[in-house]
């Protein structure tokens, strides 16, 4: 069984995001890390590798910023890695899916896993669009996967619905599943894993090598970035912790009458 995991390097959650005078994102200032949702996807693939001897390829599209995330996937136990090099993030989901599909097509994975969304842009589209490009079935919001065996023709998928309800479905392979946090407990790479990852294959390719003379046109363009309009903030309590807590308890008791 062949499994591919799509990973994205996202802007660090704590990052301070600044716009230039022209309203452009100051990318050079930003640091990137592996998208949290994708971490769970990698773990799920590695578990399948352990159970069914699956080959796991981690794939990422982006600048040099993604290499660290690919290395992490290898250190966790992925078999090999593919880096599709671009000069910039492809902010458009359809373009990203088109390029990823060409990189995966030759490998013919039985199962492709990806995070449900990216932590920074949160479009939650690439998995589904990729499945369409490859002609695969697809399910999003996966919180459980049962792979019956190495030659599985279908997988049982537990999808999470709103309100924490679940829908169990059977999806015929080949398929793309998008993975939600909490499906497993991602492992930390061990020293041994990190050492072993250095000998693993990390293939670099460009969109041009995949047949894209120019990058696919965006279906959604970002025309403007701005700071969200300020909203009314909470009444912020002042002073040291003792004073803040005393004042809070007074307010809750005397003004709000909830204590």
């Amino acid at each position: 069984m062949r499994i591919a995991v799509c990973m994205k390097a996202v802007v660090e959650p704590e990052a301070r995001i600044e716009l230039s005078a022209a309203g452009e994102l100051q990318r050079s200032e930003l640091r990137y890390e592996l998208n949290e949702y994708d971490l769970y996807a990698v773990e799920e693939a590695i578990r399948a590798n352990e159970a069914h001897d699956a080959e796991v390829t981690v794939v990422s599209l982006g600048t040099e910023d993604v290499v660290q995330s690919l290395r992490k996937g290898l250190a966790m136990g992925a078999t090999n890695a593919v880096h599709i090099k671009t000069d910039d993030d492809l902010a458009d989901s359809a373009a990203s899916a088109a390029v990823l599909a060409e990189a995966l097509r030759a490998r013919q994975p039985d199962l492709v896993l990806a995070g449900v969304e990216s932590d920074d842009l949160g479009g939650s589209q690439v998995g589904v669009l990729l499945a369409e490009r490859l002609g695969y079935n697809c399910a999003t919001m996966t919180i459980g996967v049962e792979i019956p065996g190495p030659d599985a023709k279908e997988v049982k998928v537990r999808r999470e619905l709103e309100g924490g309800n679940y829908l169990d479905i059977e999806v015929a392979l080949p398929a793309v599943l998008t993975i939600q946090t909490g499906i497993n407990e991602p492992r930390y790479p061990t020293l041994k894993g990190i050492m072993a990852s250095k000998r693993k294959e990390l293939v670099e390719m460009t969109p041009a090598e995949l047949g894209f003379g120019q990058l696919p046109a965006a279906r959604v363009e970002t025309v403007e970035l701005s700071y969200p309009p300020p909203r009314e903030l909470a009444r912020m309590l002042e002073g040291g912790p003792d004073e803040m807590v005393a004042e809070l308890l007074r307010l809750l008791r005397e003004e709000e009458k909830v204590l």
Partner: protein
Amino acid sequence: MSVEIWCIAEHRGGVLDADTLQLLGAARKLGGTAVAVVCAADPAPLAEQLSTSADKVIALRHEALSDFTPGGYAQAIAPLARERQPGAILMLHSHFLGRDLGPLLASRLETGLISDCTELGWDEGLVGWRLVYRRKLLAKQKAAGAPPHMATCQRGAFMPAEASDSPGEIENLEAAIEADSLGWKVLGFEEAEVGDEDITEAEVIVVGGRGVGDQETFDSMRELTKLLGGALASTRPVVDQGWADRGLQIGSSGKTVRPRLYIGMGVSGAIQHVVGMRESDVIVAVNKDARAPIFEYADYGMVADLKEILQRLVEQLREMRG
């Protein structure tokens, strides 16, 4: 006649998801004809219900639409959308329709989908505004290419359409679906876990977010809940870490609560959490980051280390109670 805006109705088990009316509200706000599109094995009751708020209802019927499958919905809607060319197609950014069907339909229609919009407009095509980079920036996005353009709408972002005196006309159509080609077989549905305590009943809720840092600190918050006579609850990452049971999770994929007092500690205020708590009467937030979005929803805020606040809350409440 103004341009048609199709709003895909969300429903399960014969019950309409009332937030569908927000789509119709968004369609009216865009100045379009608000058309509800309902796909079901027996769409008549839902169509009737929608007709009181929509200008028009398209009811697509087929046996294979008895369960939601993205393939079934896409096969029902795509050919009709190609033929009639509505100006835009809207759906909720829900787990059911928004995430599975939205991108699938956009792909089949070769059009752009703007995700999780909080505002919509026209500018030679559909434009949508959405919060990105953890709500630190607002992006204005535009769908490229020929219509119908698509968008998913954040729950709660648009006012629901009001019911009108003259119900919209209902058009009944039989969908053409190849049931063998759906790729999904629905096996069953299971209700969310409730857990030992039902947090939706509590009048006071103390919530630990990822900022609590470890199991021990999360557990130590029980002291505070005992003193307040309330319940302990959490955000999703705390459940994912295994520090709390799933039944304690507040948010879009957990419980919706409306206590008299909500105290959040180490909670950043992501929209998926906020939708489950913003109706609370009094909201208190403790976060070490003054820019955390939770302060936009709170009545009282403290920029501090939660451990220091937790300890003092326990001490001072003990004193107060004698």
